[in-house]
């Protein structure tokens, strides 16, 4: 009676610094529990079924994305794939890298939301982008299968996103201002140079100015400096004086351990690393080819094994469309009419604070002001593991504690959303419902692990209403 085999469609749209791409994938969900047991529904297979062309991201100006042009691209690709927004159950639209800093990024996202299907639309922070590209490149799987520590470097036009996996587990992410289009070349002359790169070059005695003639030898020298920064980011060599400044938005570095044993490359520059590209090095109007060559030749990066990525230029979009969705546990409580809900910040009670109900309450009360600008509660989700509170009495006490400490939510207009890891979603949901005398909508899901600073989207039910698709957007990873 529990036999279940359902296929859902997922979309990934990535609007990056230089390119815009889209993919559709098919996620197969199955009940893996024996018959007569409570269902255990998991995603058992993921397959990319459609890959779009790779477009240059249309810009209206240096600071503005051309939202209408992006919309046209997306609409055209839907048509080409023969897929309508209604068919999509999940997915992610992300604006990555430099583009996310454009003035109208949010406007673009909302313009796309009606096209993307009724779910997730978000800007990706650099950490999320690192994770998505790492998954899309298959680095997590590779590291798990080979039981080694592998870093994926997703080198795009403006940034390099690094994700570090040890035996399949994410150990760190970082993002550097290293990319193929940070110096652009037009008609043999330098047409653009990113200030940070200019400064990096200058520190090593190389002057690059807009308008200068583009000498391949000279720009290769700059690219070697960028490659060296990547080696430093992987702790393959000691950091120099410029290194700390290379992280995007003053971001953090990777943890020094575990030590990297192998690398994969994705992003637009990856193919220039894996393949030797001769002839005109400026054929793309940038230094991508030179950067690829410099990375391949870097003595420090060469000390670790070079592995092939499953996806190169499409890694991020495949990651977004194929590897972002999880499914909740099958015993949960929700109000169907309130779904889907998007971009909900997580108010996370740390495992230490969960130890007693007093500290749990205090943690929620203390964090609440962060989510109540001008005294009004935003829509939030309260999250904790729920470990060790599994007896009926403990669940009742837990429910009471949540209600007591989340007054702003209870009194506010939005449903009470609780996200737990342990399989107590339904009984906790019932307890909340009964204690609130059914006067408040309650959404209580389990089987989902979150971190402080995460945002989540909860989709409409799948598998005959037994589970909800959930997308977790980890915006900050290293801490």
């Amino acid at each position, binding site marked *: 009676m529990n*036999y279940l085999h359902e296929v859902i469609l997922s979309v990934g749209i990535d609007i990056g610094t230089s390119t815009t791409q889209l993919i559709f994938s098919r996620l197969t969900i199955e009940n*893996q*529990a*024996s*018959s007569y047991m409570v269902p255990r529904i998991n995603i058992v297979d993921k397959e990319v079924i459609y890959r779009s062309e790779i477009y240059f991201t249309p810009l209206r100006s240096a600071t503005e994305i051309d939202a209408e042009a992006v919309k046209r691209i997306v609409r055209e690709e839907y048509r080409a794939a023969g897929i309508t927004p209604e068919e999509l159950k999940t997915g992610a639209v992300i604006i990555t890298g430099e583009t996310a800093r454009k003035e109208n990024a949010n406007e673009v996202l909302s313009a796309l939301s009606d096209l993307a299907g009724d779910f997730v639309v978000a800007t990706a922070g650099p950490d999320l982008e690192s994770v998505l590209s790492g998954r899309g490149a298959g680095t997590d799987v590779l590291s798990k299968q080979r039981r080694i520590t592998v870093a994926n470097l997703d080198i795009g036009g403006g940034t390099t996103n690094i994700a570090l996996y040890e035996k399949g587990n994410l150990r760190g992410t970082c993002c550097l201002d290293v990319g193929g289009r940070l110096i652009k070349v037009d008609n043999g002359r330098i047409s653009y140079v990113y200030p940070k790169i200019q400064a990096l070059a200058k520190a090593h005695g190389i002057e690059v100015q807009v308008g200068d003639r583009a000498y391949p030898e000279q720009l290769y020298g700059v690219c070697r400096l960028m490659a060296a920064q990547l080696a430093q980011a992987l702790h393959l060599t000691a950091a120099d004086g410029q290194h700390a400044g290379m992280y995007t938005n003053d971001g953090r570095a990777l943890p020094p351990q575990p030590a990297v044993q192998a690398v994969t490359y994705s992003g637009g520059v990856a193919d220039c690393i894996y393949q030797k590209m001769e002839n005109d090095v400026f054929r793309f109007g940038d230094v991508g080819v030179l950067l690829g060559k410099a990375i391949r030749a870097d003595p420090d990066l060469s000390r670790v094994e070079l592995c092939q990525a499953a996806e190169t230029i499409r890694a991020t979009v495949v990651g977004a469309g194929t590897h972002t969705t999880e499914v909740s546990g099958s015993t949960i409580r929700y109000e169907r009419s309130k779904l889907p809900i998007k971009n909900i910040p997580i108010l996370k009670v740390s495992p230490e604070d969960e130890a007693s109900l007093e500290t749990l309450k205090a943690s929620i009360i203390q964090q609440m002001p962060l989510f109540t600008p001008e005294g009004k509660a935003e829509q939030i989700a309260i999250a904790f593991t729920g470990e060790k509170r599994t007896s009926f009495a403990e669940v009742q006490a837990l429910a009471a504690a949540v209600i007591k400490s989340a007054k702003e939510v209870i009194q506010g207009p939005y449903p009470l959303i609780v996200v737990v890891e342990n399989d107590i979603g339904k009984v906790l949901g019932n307890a909340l419902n009964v204690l609130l005398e059914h006067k408040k909508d309650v959404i209580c899901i389990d089987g989902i692990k979150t971190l402080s600073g995460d945002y989540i989207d909860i989709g409409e039910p799948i598998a005959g209403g037994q589970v909800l698709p959930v997308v977790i957007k980890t915006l900050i990873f290293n801490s």
Partner: protein
Amino acid sequence: MILKTKLFGHVYEFKSVREVMAKANEEKSGDKLAGIAAETAEERVAAKVVLSHLTLNDLRNNPAVPYEEDEVTRIIQDDINETIFNQFKGMTVSEFREWLLSEKTTTAMIRHASRGLTSECVAGVCKLMSNLDLIYAAKKMRVQAHCNTTIGVDGTFSSRLQPNHTTDDPKGIIASVMEGLSVGCGDAVIGINPVDDSVESVARLLKMLDEFKNKWEIPTQCSVLAHITTQVEAAEKFGAPLDMVFQSIAGSQKGNEAFGVTAQMIQDGRDMVLSRGTSTGPNVNYFETGQGSELSSEAHNGWDQVTMEARCYGLARHFQPFLVNTVVGFIGPEYLYDAKQVTRAGLEDHFMGKLTGISMGCDACYTNHMKADQNDIENLATLLVAAGCNYVMGVPQGDDCMLMYQCTGFHEAAALREIFGLRPIKEFDAWMEKMGFSENGKLTPKAGDASVFLRK
């Protein structure tokens, strides 16, 4: 025939052969549940006395279910070689017992006699045998069969590797297969009892086992123990490799109906594997049986569970199976109450199977609501090897997490081989040596290290 005797001066009169056969049984809770067991210990012996005077002809003439009503009876009766039967039909059960035990009676003579025996004859003589008689007589008999390898050769003892998993998880199953093989389990068959018995799932499991078997060049045979029609469909629809076909069977047509199976289905399955299967053959059937299953589906027709069990073997014989095993303690204490009854049933079934002429193994097992423990099952396994049993089961440390019962573990076959100076099937033995798991029939220190199969 006479159905009356006196014991200590007390008269015991039985109404029918059926009643004699039931009451002559050693004590079984299943016969009591059916309301047909001897009421006292003395009555039991009285029934044995009466039985000892019946002839094999009397037993043949009183099948448990009438010929006209039951295809199992028809198959058993029609398979009899009348010439051979005529040589034996005048013997009393007592005389036949002594003939079997006689030093003059050879292995070959018993094999010859088998062709003239109906299941009721087989069951009848079993009831007059003590446990040691059952071992002594069974030891004389050898039945060989060939699928990809030959089972039952003198000097060998085999085991089925049973890598069951609560959710048919392929990784979990393979982990179990690896560990079993690493201690020499699996030369009889690698056979999974699936949780999900859909055609797709059965096909998937069959392919997985076959791939593993081929990759490591393991000389054995594989099976997924779903319904016979499911296995056939898996082969036809999805090209699943079938070395043999499995089916649970009962000793009456009605009992088989409860399993959803007919003789025709078994024949079709057999034909299918012979024409399109992956094994050499000619023995491509695998049956499981067990005392009490007919009563549990109310298909025993008032007969005792030993006789009904013998009839399973009579049915099985028709298809010349590679393996038959009696799952002896799985059914619960309402049929076999405790270790004593399980031990008795295991020895009876093994003896009866061999006397019928089939390649016999035993799943010596118990459930947790039975008064038995692992020591009892180790005892039974040891007795069975002494009796020349072809094979037993092997599950991780004797604990089947999916069927929730305990039986013999992976290590048992290896230990029993060493104790009795036996070896696995020849090709499998050579494979074990090649893998470094055994040397001259003894496990090496490397045995038990399943991680050898994860060599890069």
